[in-house]
């Protein structure tokens, strides 16, 4: 038995996981329309490769990765492109973004799939294949995986951690995936281990998922270690899980990669396996649909499926009021359910007043420091709150605002019901906006200086030319009388 470490803080919210694990993963019927956003990952939006009226095959690339940090987007089924334009997307702002609308033809005709012989391919080509397959982190952060599979020159990854903790209440998509497709995850982990040359692989699963643990242990055999970790939220945060499994605390501003540990979600490992073994790009993901529905469960939904379509499959009950994408701790209220499932959609919770009663009116902070006790990142949330509220963002940054993982433990324990995490999100986005403005101002300053320099140079050159001309004229005047 491996000796486990622990992180400070954490909370034990009601789990609500049992409801959605009663049924196996279901295949919802093919929807009439798929709306596929081009920005489903961290980094640049993909560049559309198709136009309205084109017919596409299942698995065909319809959006090309643009720039280094980006990922490709594919047609989840065969059909006709209806339009390329701005559509509603699952985003807390409710704003629209560029999407490709696809009308499925129901034929499911695939492109020519080309499995990849990863053992005989150089790592850089292999990473490009994963990038073109649109493989991104399916744990929720949707960071392009090929970048994380490149440890960089001179760095060595000793430990590969697979994250099957799934600590957030209600969400069970990873649990069901591990129960039903443990072999795919293990094979994917083996490919990742090969790419990173990692010495050991550790798979962390919270001990509230005994079936997933035994399925994964069976599939892993002796090659990888499946570790049951204590159930505590947010034990599935990458930094928290790494700390529990290895005892390594990732310092502020550093990445676990620098310390020889790389962490991937179990669903990402499964999609790596499918991309390499079958050449299949990421076309679907497992989505938990739960909350105020008759048959909560997990669905293998095509990317672009309207969330309302999935909720209909689960049977919404009376008194449904809105929905959350993600979990109750870190998720956000959807502006509407007429938005598509994206690669980041792990869970849809249908809300009702009984399940999510209205929060009491916030009261003043009484400086009880319960938030600090619960903070898994060892921050001082009460201080961050004061600084964010006062607009003193520089000070908030000094108090390590950007080490906040927005897990919501502080909000959960706050006896005054202050929406602390909302303040941190607000402060972070203000700081990012200020940085963008600063960058733009610096660019404008440089361009203005260069322009002044150019005008000055042109003036000087003109004066020199004039001087030269008049000097020439003078010599001509002087020389002419001599010739006479």
């Amino acid at each position: 038995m491996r000796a486990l470490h622990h992180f400070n803080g954490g909370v034990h919210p009601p789990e609500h996981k049992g409801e959605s694990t009663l049924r196996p993963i279901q295949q919802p019927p093919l929807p009439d329309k798929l709306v596929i956003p081009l920005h489903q990952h961290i980094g640049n939006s993909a560049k559309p490769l198709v136009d309205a009226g084109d017919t596409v095959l299942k698995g065909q690339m319809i959006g090309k990765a643009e720039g280094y940090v980006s990922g490709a987007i594919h047609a989840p089924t065969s059909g006709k492109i209806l339009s390329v334009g701005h559509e509603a997307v699952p985003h807390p702002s409710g704003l629209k973004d560029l999407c490709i609308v696809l009308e499925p033809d129901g034929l499911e005709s695939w492109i020519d799939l080309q499995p990849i012989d990863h053992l005989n391919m150089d790592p850089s080509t292999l990473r490009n294949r994963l990038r073109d397959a649109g493989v991104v982190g399916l744990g929720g952060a949707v960071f392009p995986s090929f970048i994380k599979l490149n440890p960089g020159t001179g760095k060595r990854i000793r430990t590969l951690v697979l994250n099957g903790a799934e600590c957030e209440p209600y969400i069970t998509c990873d649990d069901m995936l591990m129960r039903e497709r443990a072999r795919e995850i293990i094979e994917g982990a083996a490919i990742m281990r090969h790419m990173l040359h990692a010495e050991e692989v550790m798979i962390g699963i919270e001990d509230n998922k005994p079936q997933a643990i035994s399925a994964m242990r069976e599939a892993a055999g002796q090659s990888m270690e499946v570790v049951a970790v204590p159930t505590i939220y947010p034990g599935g945060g990458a930094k928290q899980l790494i700390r529990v499994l290895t005892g390594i605390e990732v310092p502020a501003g550093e990445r676990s990669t620098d310390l020889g540990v790389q962490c991937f979600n179990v669903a990402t490992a499964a999609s790596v396996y499918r991309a390499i073994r079958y050449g299949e790009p990421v076309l679907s993901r497992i989505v938990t649909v739960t909350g105020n529905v008759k048959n909560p469960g997990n669905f293998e939904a095509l990317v672009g499926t309207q969330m309302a379509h999935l909720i209909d499959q689960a049977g919404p009950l009376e008194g449904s009021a809105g929905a959350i994408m993600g979990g109750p701790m870190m998720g956000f209220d959807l502006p509407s359910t007429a938005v598509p499932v994206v690669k980041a959609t792990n869970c849809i919770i249908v809300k009702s007043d009984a399940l999510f009663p209205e929060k009491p009116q916030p009261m003043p902070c009484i400086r009880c420091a319960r938030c600090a006790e619960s903070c898994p990142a060892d921050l001082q949330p009460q201080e961050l709150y004061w600084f964010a509220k006062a607009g003193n963002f520089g000070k908030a940054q000094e108090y390590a605002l950007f080490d906040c993982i927005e897990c919501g433990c502080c909000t959960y324990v706050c006896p005054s019901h202050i929406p602390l995490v909302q303040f941190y999100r607000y402060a972070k986005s203000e700081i990012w906006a200020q940085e963008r403005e600063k960058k733009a101002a610096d660019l404008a300053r440089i361009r203005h200086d260069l322009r002044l320099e150019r005008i000055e140079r042109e003036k000087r050159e003109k004066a020199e030319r004039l001087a030269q001309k008049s000097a020439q004229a003078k010599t001509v005047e002087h020389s002419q009388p001599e010739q006479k």
Partner: protein
Amino acid sequence: MLDAIIVMSGLALFLGGVLGYASIRFHVQGNALVEKIDAILPQTQCAQCGFPGCRPYAEAIAEGRADINQCPPGGDANIHKLADLLGVEFKSLNASHGEPKPKSVAFIDESTCIGCTLCLQACPVDAICGAPKQMHTIIAQECTGCELCIAPCPVDCIFMVPIQENISNWKWKQPAYLKGAA
């Protein structure tokens, strides 16, 4: 007596050397205060302050020739920063220099543009692309929204377009329902 003179003058020579070296080694390039003020100004180069650009305005503030409340694009937020930097009282924006507007970029109606290059010459950051008798266009990422290109245009084909909120520049709002509570 002689020892004391030698020691003291030796010490004086040594310390003088150190000071001389320090003044070269740690020499501050240019006027540090002007740099700091210039770093706060928004670099729109719009000249609404009455000076031909952000740096001349920064120099004027540093020399006490101009007040800190003459920059409409910077708005109250920048006046606060300048007041903090200079240790003076905050004063609200002097309306005679203009009102703060939502951030915009210029847009050229290309069907009306006659290719006169007057706007190219007016643009303080070279954000307009074009040539004589060729259509002009704005490089939106580099436009500061200074509006200096609008006046010279003989056919009035340049408009200001406010920058719309989109997914990438959207910001979380400050939770509003805490008003009154502290």
